[in-house]
């Protein structure tokens, strides 16, 4: 052993020590210093979370007729992200052969934007068991063929705007929904009750946490929370009355399109309208129609492109998806005179029985030092002669209310805004609070509102540079429901309901109750939407004269403005009180390029002296309230009467929903192991006798000898 050899061996020893030190330091770092991070990563490695979408709750009318339901359907989906761009062609051509759908159609379905861009796209629906098998036996990667629940609307377009529809997660809110446990492919309510009651309808997704190994094999179920079905929403709508209301509104609009306008000499375009039927005793909305309308199934299943465009992108009949009953803003016209009359009475300005000579126009008296426009004409410049308040209501005297508007303006006290105050008391100018999304609040103008509008948007509201102060002319226009006043049909109905029922203003209800469908408390009513009283309006003395005037609206002898529409109506059996309205619409019809035709309105309650239902009808560009809207209202009131006879008190008859029966293979139905999973009322919860077995003559599953031993 020489010196050099041993020094080289020593060097090697140092190398060994150095390398070992490196290993120790690294182990210390991994196992002691960064232990926490590794543990977190290790956990995430092993747990796979499987989310089962819940069954969406149904939407039913007040008597249990299902308006939105789920059907099981065989669906083929393709996950585009699994493929490089070129690879997709092979899969599509193979799918096209199996499904008998041409490749171009499949490709267009892959590119649709109905669902989230990252979600697997549905390329075929309505497959049966065999169709699903045929696709799945190909075992194409990224292609799944499975049963899915699909939203369906059995009544088609009936109640479409109330029920709403479901669609893909909106891009703006997608992340919020995903945080709440939604799946990318899930549909959420985009309109109506479907939208507003989304959290209740959706239910709770089932979450199963599995411990899996590298091959994806399940070693252990860590936690399994079954999906909880969404709640049923029971509406206050009566589907039959709803269908009638929609049908009469449509017929009325079609009739208006065959009527020639005196103003323009053309047919009325009658581009749309809304009708509301409400129980004025508790604020339940029984029917709410909006036209033009659509079938929500089109939006769920998809329709041909040209049909879609003709319905949803039709410029002549715009806003198909808008519920005009709560989103449409209309000048109320003469229907607002009731408010003016009540305001004038409140201010002490109107003596109800004082005579007024209607000359067909109203000129602001000299003493007020009028400047600018000082003479205001009746709509048709017709002089009505001597009227009192009642007659002014029945015959719709503009001049009478011009005077009220003008003289209120000149009052020195707070009462100069008596019309506006009364309007706000009756719920105008703000949302009614009905359980529907996107409700508009309307506008009741006064000096402040006018100034804000004129200053914020001069092009639209003040193109000629008019003074921004509140002028007598503004108040006069407001008095007959023109100018800056806009209301929704729902507000109109609600305000007349408050007048008819003696002053109770409700927040209308369109949802009656929420019913649980979960296994523990199936059928239990989780929340009953009681009548919500917003306020009690104190009506001034003389209100009875206003009501008397409204009672005469259908009367020929009293020259009621709707007498023609109610010719031959059984007024003594189911009498109608109400008010017509014909309001001028600002602006130009963008398609026809001519001045917009008048909006026809009619608000009424029935029966006159025992008011139970209020009906409001608004028809855009359809002519006179008495000629276009009143006949529709008459038909709706007749339908309401039929409804009352169909559902005599008590009016709410609860029809229990059918339980949702889980799928259990034929052979296992009645098996004790599954009994706990089957809700009561499902046919396969009942044990099936198994007769004809050797040694078990009575077929109860227990061998004969054991049975005797037990007995």
């Amino acid at each position, binding site marked *: 052993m020489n010196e050099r*050899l041993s020094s*080289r061996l020593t060097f090697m*020893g140092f190398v060994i020590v150095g390398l070992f030190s*490196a290993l120790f330091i*690294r182990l210390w770092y*991994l196992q002691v210093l960064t232990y926490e991070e590794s543990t977190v990563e290790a956990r995430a490695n092993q747990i796979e979370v499987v989310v089962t979408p819940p069954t969406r709750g149904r939407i039913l009318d007040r008597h249990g007729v299902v308006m939105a339901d789920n059907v099981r359907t065989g669906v083929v989906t393709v996950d585009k992200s699994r493929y490089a761009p070129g690879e997709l062609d092979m899969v599509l051509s193979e799918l096209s052969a199996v499904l008998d759908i041409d490749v171009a159609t499949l490709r267009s379905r892959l590119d649709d934007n109905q669902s989230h861009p990252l979600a697997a796209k549905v390329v075929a629906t309505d497959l049966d068991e065999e169709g699903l098998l045929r696709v799945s036996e190909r075992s194409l990667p990224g292609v799944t063929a499975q049963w899915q629940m699909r939203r369906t609307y059995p009544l088609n377009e009936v109640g479409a705007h109330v029920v709403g529809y479901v669609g893909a997660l909106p891009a703006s809110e997608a992340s919020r929904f995903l945080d709440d446990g939604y799946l990318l492919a899930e549909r959420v309510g985009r309109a109506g009750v479907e939208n507003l009651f989304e959290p209740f309808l959706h239910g709770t997704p089932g979450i199963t946490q599995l411990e899996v190994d590298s091959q994806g094999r399940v070693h252990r179920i860590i936690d399994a929370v079954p999906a909880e079905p969404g709640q049923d929403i029971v509406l206050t709508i009566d589907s039959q009355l709803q269908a009638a209301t929609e049908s009469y509104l449509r017929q009325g609009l079609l009739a208006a399109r065959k009527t020639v306008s005196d103003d323009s000499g053309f047919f009325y375009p009658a581009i749309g309208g809304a009708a509301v039927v409400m129980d004025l005793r508790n604020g339940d909305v029984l029917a709410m129609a909006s036209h033009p309308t659509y079938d929500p199934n089109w939006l769920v299943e998809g329709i041909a492109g040209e049909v879609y465009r003709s319905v949803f992108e039709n410029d002549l009949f715009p806003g198909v998806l808008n519920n005009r009953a709560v989103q449409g803003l209309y000048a109320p016209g003469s229907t607002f005179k009731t408010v003016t009359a009540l305001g004038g009475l409140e201010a002490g300005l109107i003596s109800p029985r004082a005579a007024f000579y209607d000359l067909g126009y109203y000129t602001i008296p000299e003493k007020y030092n009028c400047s600018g426009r000082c003479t205001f004409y009746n709509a048709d410049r017709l002089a009505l002669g001597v009227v009192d308040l009642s007659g002014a209501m029945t015959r719709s005297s503009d001049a009478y209310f011009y005077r009220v508007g003008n003289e209120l303006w000149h009052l020195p006290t707070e009462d100069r805004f008596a019309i506006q105050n009364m309007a706000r008391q009756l719920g105008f100018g703000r949302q009614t609070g009905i359980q529907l999304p996107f409700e508009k609040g309307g506008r009741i103008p006064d000096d402040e509102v006018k100034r804000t509008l004129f200053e914020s948007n001069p092009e639209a509201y003040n193109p000629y540079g008019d003074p921004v102060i509140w002028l007598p002319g503004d108040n006069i226009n407001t008095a007959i429901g023109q100018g800056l006043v806009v209301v929704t049909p729902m507000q109109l109905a609600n305000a007349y309901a408050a007048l008819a029922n003696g002053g109770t203003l409700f927040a209308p209800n369109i949802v009656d109750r929420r019913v649980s469908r979960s296994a523990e408390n199936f059928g239990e009513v989780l929340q009953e939407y009681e009548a919500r009283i917003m306020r009690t309006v104190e009506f001034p003395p003389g209100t009875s004269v206003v009501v008397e005037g409204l009672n005469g609206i259908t009367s020929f002898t009293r020259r009621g403005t709707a007498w023609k529409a109610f010719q031959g109506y059984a007024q003594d059996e189911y009498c109608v009180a109400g008010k017509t309205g014909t309001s001028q619409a600002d602006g130009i019809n963008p398609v026809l390029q001519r001045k917009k035709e008048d909006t026809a309105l009619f608000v009424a309650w029935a029966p006159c002296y025992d008011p139970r239902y209020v009906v409001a009808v608004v028809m855009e560009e359809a002519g006179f309230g008495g000629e276009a809207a009143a006949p529709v209202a008459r038909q709706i009131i007749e339908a309401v009467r039929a409804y009352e006879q169909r559902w005599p008190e008590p009016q709410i008859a609860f029809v229990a929903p059918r339980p949702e029966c889980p799928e259990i293979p034929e052979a296992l139905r009645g098996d004790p192991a599954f009994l706990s999973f089957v809700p009561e009322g499902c046919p396969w919860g009942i044990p099936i006798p198994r007769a004809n077995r050797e040694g078990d003559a009575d077929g109860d599953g227990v061998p004969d000898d054991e049975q005797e031993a037990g007995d």
Partner: protein
Amino acid sequence: MGLPVRKELRSPLRYTDYSLAGAAVAVALIGVAMNYAATWRQLEFDGGDPAFFAKRQAVFVGLGVIAMIGAAAVDYRFFRDFASQGYLIVLGFLVAVLFVGAEKNGARSWFELPGLAFQLQPSEFAKVAVVLSLAAFVANHEGHLKTDALINALLLVVVPMVLIFLQPDIGTMLVFVAIAMGMLLVAGAQIRHIVFTTTLGIVAILVVFGSDDLGGPKLIRQNQENRLTAFINPDFDPSGASYSLNQSQIAVGAGGLTGQGWLEGSQTTLDLIPEQETDFIFTALAEEFGFLGSTAVLLLYGYILFRIWRIAATARDLFGTFVCVGMLSMFLFQLFQNVGMTVGIMPITGITLPFMSHGGSSALVAFASIGVVLNVGSRRHMPV
């Protein structure tokens, strides 16, 4: 000692380093236990005998101990005299395996032995053959290597390396580099020789890896290049090349200070680490017994290396010293490379952890190597 030994001063039995043999057997038994831990759950899942791999490894360890005793029994100078014949036989096997070897994971490294439960890996035996013949060669030069002798010595190593590269089995090939470097360093190669050969080696590696970029044929396979890329950039292809790297580090880290306990390691039982019973056996130990357990096993290895080093220093002739240095280099490199890759300080190459990894050839060679070292140590007082 109850053995019937002759109480003769120079008896090899008297000077045999039983603590070295004991440490090797202890590590091997821990290896059997870890083989069980790494495989029982998957075997049970597949409906097999959960102890199948552990039992097989126990048999290998038994065979290994027999090989160790055998290698320790005959005077090691016998190996020196027959080193060239053994070397040629192994070369023959290495050539043969390229043609008749069984292909596994794209490499022809194995002989399928019909009727036998395990396969034979000639490159494992080549390590021993190269150590013995290289030791014999440099011992003949009395520890002073001239340039031409050095080239001859390098040729001894390079020929089997090229054959193994053709399989290809980069990991085992690198073991030969380590053996050559360690032995030539101690054998008295001059510093400039070492610098020159190291530079040559680095250039060769760069040429091999960059061959396709330089316009030539691709000499290494894509997955090998990917593994190196993954080592430098752990986020590269996380489900592919970086998978083993990241998973093994997570498993090691999840062990913590004291470990999750025997058969309790979640990464281990859930089979999240590929090749865990062979190349990644250390992760099972690290996860289930933590820093303390893995340190203890590393210290056992350190003891083994220390004893080999001691025997190298006290051998009666240069051949004995060089044999021990070769074995030392081989164990040191395999240990550092294997444990290093599981903790992420070395790139991933298919290389076994001596005594612990599942495998017959590996166990046989490791124990036989220890046997040779024991042989050298036990005859240190014999006349030269």
